[in-house]
C-alpha cells in the first residue's frame, strides 16, 4: 500500500482515500434525499399490495409475512443496484478512479458500502414497521432485522457485479435484474428461513450464521469481480 505514496507524495493512504470516497458518495446521496426515499416508498407500496392481493385476514398475512418482507426487500435492493456506478461512469470520474494508483478493491468496497448504508441498512432498520403492518409475530422482529442487515450486504455486493457489468450499456435496467436475481436466491432462502424459524420459536442462529458466511464470501470475492467488470465496461 506504500506504492501510491511513493509515486505521488501528496496521495492519501488507502484507508483515507476510501473514507473520502465513502463521504463523497454519502454526501451525493444526501443531496438527493428523494433517491434515498424512493426504495423505502417502493417497499411500503409493495407491502401494501399483498393485503390487497391476498386478502386482509391477519392469519394469512402472518403466514406469508417472512417471505413477503424478504422478497420486497430484495426487489427494493434490485431497483437501486443499477444506479451504483451510472453517474460516475457518465461524467468520467469512474475512469479517473480506474487510472488512480489506489487499489480498486477497496475503492469498490467504499462504493458498495455507501449504497448499502442508504438502502439495505436503512430498509432493515425500518422493516419492523412493515412487519407490524403484515402482522408478523413480534418475537421474530429482531431476527428479521438481523437477517436483513446481513443479507442486504450480500445483495448490495452481488448487485454491484451486475451494475458494473452493465454500466456501459444504454439499456441496463432490465438486464441487471436478469443477471443478478439467480444469485439472490440463496440469500432469499436463508433470510426468510431465519425469520420463519423465529416465528415458530425455533433457533434462527444457524440460518443467520450461513447468511454471515455468505456475506464474508461476497466481501472477499465480489469486489474482485466488480473491479474486473468495471475495467471491461470502461474499456468498451
Amino acid at each position, binding site marked *: 500500500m506504500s506504492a501510491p505514496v511513493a509515486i505521488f507524495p501528496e496521495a492519501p493512504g488507502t484507508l483515507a482515500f476510501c473514507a473520502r470516497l465513502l463521504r463523497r458518495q454519502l454526501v451525493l446521496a444526501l443531496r438527493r434525499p428523494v433517491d434515498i426515499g424512493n426504495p423505502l416508498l417502493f417497499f411500503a407500496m409493495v407491502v401494501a399490495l399483498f393485503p390487497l392481493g391476498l386478502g386482509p385476514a391477519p392469519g394469512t398475512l402472518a403466514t406469508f409475512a417472512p417471505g413477503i418482507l424478504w422478497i420486497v426487500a430484495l426487489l427494493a435492493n434490485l431497483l437501486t443496484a443499477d444506479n451504483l456506478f451510472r453517474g460516475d461512469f457518465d461524467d468520467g470520474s469512474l475512469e479517473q478512479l480506474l487510472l488512480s494508483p489506489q487499489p480498486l478493491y477497496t475503492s469498490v468496497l467504499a462504493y458498495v458500502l455507501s449504497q448499502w448504508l442508504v438502502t439495505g441498512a436503512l430498509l432493515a432498520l425500518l422493516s419492523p414497521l412493515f412487519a407490524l403492518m403484515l402482522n408478523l409475530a413480534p418475537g421474530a422482529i429482531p431476527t428479521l432485522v438481523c437477517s436483513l442487515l446481513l443479507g442486504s450486504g450480500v445483495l448490495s455486493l452481488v448487485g454491484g457485479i451486475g451494475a458494473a*457489468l452493465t454500466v456501459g450499456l444504454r439499456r441496463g435496467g432490465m438486464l441487471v435484474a436478469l443477471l443478478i436475481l439467480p*444469485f439472490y436466491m440463496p440469500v432469499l432462502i436463508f433470510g426468510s428461513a431465519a425469520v420463519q424459524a423465529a416465528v415458530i420459536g425455533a433457533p434462527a442462529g444457524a440460518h443467520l450464521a450461513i447468511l454471515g458466511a455468505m456475506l464474508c464470501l461476497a466481501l472477499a470475492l465480489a469486489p474482485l469481480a466488480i473491479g474486473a467488470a468495471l475495467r471491461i465496461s470502461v474499456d468498451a
Partner: protein
Amino acid sequence: MWSFFHKLGSPPWLYGIAGSILRWLLPLTLLALIAGASWGLLFTPPDFRQGNSYRIIYIHVPAAVVALAGYYVMALAGAVSLIWKMKMADVAMKACAPVGAALTFIALVTGAIWGKPTWGTWWVWDARITSMLILLFLYLGVIALYEAYDNKAAAAKACAVLSLVGTVNIPIIYKSVDWWYSLHQPASIKFTGGSTIDPSMLYPLMLMIASFYALFTCCLLLNMRVEILRREARTNWVRKLVGA
C-alpha cells in the same frame, strides 16, 4: 506442447481442426446415440416400481449431467480468455451458452414428463429441479448479456466474468436449495460406494451419458466454426474458403 497451445489461438487452424474432428466424431456420436437409446428404451428390463416410465432416464440424466458440466466448460473457456486474452476461448465460451441452455431445458422438460406418472404432478419445487431452473436462468443471463453489448470483444469479457461468478455460486445455489426442500430421489450412480442401479440399466445409461458428452462436443465445435466464420468474414482465408 506450447506450440499446440499457441496454434489454438489461430482461427483458420482451429476451424480446420474442428472440421476434421467433426468428420469422425459426428457419425460416431449419432451411432452411439442410436445404440444407447435403443438399448435403453427397448432392451433393458422394466423397473419393478415405475414400470416402463423410468426409461426416460436415458434422456433425462445425460442431459442434466452434461448441462451442468457445460456450465463449467463455459466458465473455464471464459477464464482462459480473461487470463491469456485468447480470442478463440471467447468463441468457445459463446458457443457453449446456447448448447448448455438447450440441454438444461431438455432436462427440465423430460423431468416434468417423468414427474407426471411417478409423482403425479408436472412440477414440484424440489431442490434439484429448482437448481436446474436457476442454471437455465444463468445460461440465459449470459446469452442476454452477450447480446446486449455492441462491442463483441467486451461482451465476451463481461460474459466471462459473469460465468466465473456463476461457478462460485452454483455450489451455493445447489446446496441452499438442497437444504431448503427435497423430494427428488438421491443420485443413483456413485463412483465411490455402491450404485443403487442395476448393471443392466446402468450400462446403457453410461453409454447415453458418454454420447451426450460427445453430442455436446459436436454442437460446441459446430457452433464455434460458425462463430469463427462470422468473426473472420472479412479475412482472406474465409473469402477463399467460401469462394467469393
